[in-house]
């Protein structure tokens, strides 16, 4: 059990090192996003999956997931992100004279709902990437240490050969 968890943590650190090493956009710790993009995206993601007694999207590493893939598998969405994030700030400044990241939770919710209405293509992109990052495999940077799987009541790490055990009589994962 421990070995696997340690492995996950170790790979998360390795990933972070890599990200810092090739920061593409000036003065950013991210591979693709600027610091400001990251703050705006955090505001949106955390409305899609807010914190309760389990972490929010950004707390579980969803930004790491999206940022890494924007220079890998999601390269074709780079433009959509830049445009979509700018548009989000525009909406927020128009309505509240604040960047989205500076808005109150209530205001953020209103803006994200407005994005869903006015810019549905971008909203769907971010929604699906957020949910994938949060509920997908920890090795891609989201779902840190399998936190969403544990939230759902899945044994994490999984019990190999679980059919061999009488789980009903003992503690169920």
């Amino acid at each position, binding site marked *: 059990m421990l070995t696997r968890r340690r492995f996950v943590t170790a790979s998360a650190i390795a990933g972070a090192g890599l990200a810092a090493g090739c920061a593409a956009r000036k003065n950013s710790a991210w591979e693709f996003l600027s610091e400001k993009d990251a703050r705006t995206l955090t505001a949106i993601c955390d409305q899609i999956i807010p914190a309760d007694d389990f972490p929010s999207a950004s707390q579980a590493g969803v930004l790491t997931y999206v940022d890494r893939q924007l220079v890998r*598998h999601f390269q074709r969405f780079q433009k959509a992100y830049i445009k979509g994030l700018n548009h989000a700030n525009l909406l927020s400044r128009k309505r509240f004279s604040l960047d989205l990241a500076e808005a109150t939770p209530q205001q953020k*919710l209103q803006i994200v709902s407005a994005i869903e209405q006015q810019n549905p293509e971008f909203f769907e992109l971010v*929604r699906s990437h957020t949910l*994938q990052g949060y*509920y997908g*495999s920890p090795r*891609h940077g989201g779902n840190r240490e399998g936190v969403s799987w544990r939230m759902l*009541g899945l044994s994490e790490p999984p*019990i*190999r050969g679980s059919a061999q055990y009488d789980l009903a009589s003992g503690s169920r994962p």
Partner: protein
Amino acid sequence: MKRVNAVVIGAGAGGGIVAKELSMAGLSVVLLERGKWYTPYDCRKDDLRNQRTAVLGNAFGPEDHGNPRVWVDPAGAEHIALPSDGIYQNNAACVGGGTFSYGAMAWRYLPQDFRMKSTYGRPEGSSLEDWPIGYDDLEPFYEKAEYEIGISGDYSGTPFHGPRRRPLPMPPLPPNREFEILEPAAKRLGLHPFHIPMARNAVPYNGRGSCMRCRWCVGFACEVDAKNGSQNTVIPTALSTGNCELRTKCMVKEILTDNGGSARGVAYFDADGHLQEQPSDIVVVSACAIESARLLLNSKSRLFPNGMGNRYDQVGRNLQGHHYTGAVGYFDFDTYDDIGPGASIAVTDYNHGTPGLCGGGLLANEFIRLPIQMIDRMPSDTPRWGLGHKRAMRDFYKRNIVVMGPTQQIPAADARVTLDSTVRDKWGLPVARISGNVHPHTFEIGKKQADRAAAWLKETGAVSISRFAGKGVLVSAGQHQAGTCRMGDDPRSSVVNKQCQIHDVDNVFVIDSSVHVTNGGFNPALTIMAIAYYASEALLRNWKGTQFRS
């Protein structure tokens, strides 16, 4: 290069079996596969990168780079599709083909599935047809596939199956919780539930151990090698004869023709990208429905200016797969037990015999759902995001059962694969262009199947149920793609004869899902395998020394 008796193109379900049968009979065989040979050692359970939820790409090919297709939507607009996009209609590209990572349900079609036109008549606008062979012709070969590949299961619960001489070689896996919930409910409804036949070791078989029932099965490799595909059964046997050479990462470009109109071998790009020619007496095309059609269409010559086997413009037509529909039931107790593979129980009562409908399909419970697969399968009143969605995931992830099934598609001639005139792959070859749709009656059947799935779930005591009836605007030809080189007696309406031999080229055979006239209301792999044994036997019967004569 040294001439060999046979070149087999594609090391998947069909090609693996053909390579084994021919090399066992003493023919020299070269098996060419565009993908790699993965092993259980390469098994990586990644929810975002596998053959089913390919969010970050396919784990077992093809890779997104350099392998596009073109999809034409119902409005006529063209879209470039990458292998990890749904509209690409991917299966796989590796040794084992789809069978390396499949769910491994191993069905026999029913006798009526081979006689769809005689049973139902041909719906207006469809290309529904009978097969030129029947269930009885295939029965011995179904059995051979069940024993050589290794199938577990138990048909004794249902009268809805064709006659069989022997039971399956392995018992089913012990029931999981979903089986225990669904079985009594089905019986109360007067249905005949039974254990799904599976190409999976329930007990040690064929020198490999049994399934350890993990969470990640369909779409993934098996780390204990308990899932049976061509890569761990017939292909190793073929290689052990000393007569078969497997060349991986080799992409076949075209079948070469001599002046008399026979094939003289193939041209292919080797692992280093160099163009090679492999001369042979026979060519067997087993590249799966979309790529087999593309390869034949790309094999142009003076005698076959529109591609091989395509004299009557039949290659690539009647593309079909399965229209999946069903329902999700939500419960007030835990239905999830973390015991893989998950899919366990089925009914085949609804495959045929509903007045007004041309067929139907099996219904079964779904494989273990990964969390990301449930994101959009929450109860219908669930918010799509925010705390409400997060709570629903927590409330229902372990409390749902999905019942669904592959509705038999009613084929149409204009659902087809052609060559795109501009888009090329990384080898410079014109790519497959997918257009058209199956006959609309398919969607009526699918809707009825979803209602039936919902009724079964209702009987189990589900507190709420939502139906899904798929998209009615898409030919769904991905993993179950079939039909593009139809088997038939008439060269004007089919591509191969009942021995899978191309009508006007004696030494070229198509032996894979392409030859299916109709695709049953079942996952197709066992039928592809049975046909591969059947066609290999016919081929060997007609084989005279180093020359092939029909």
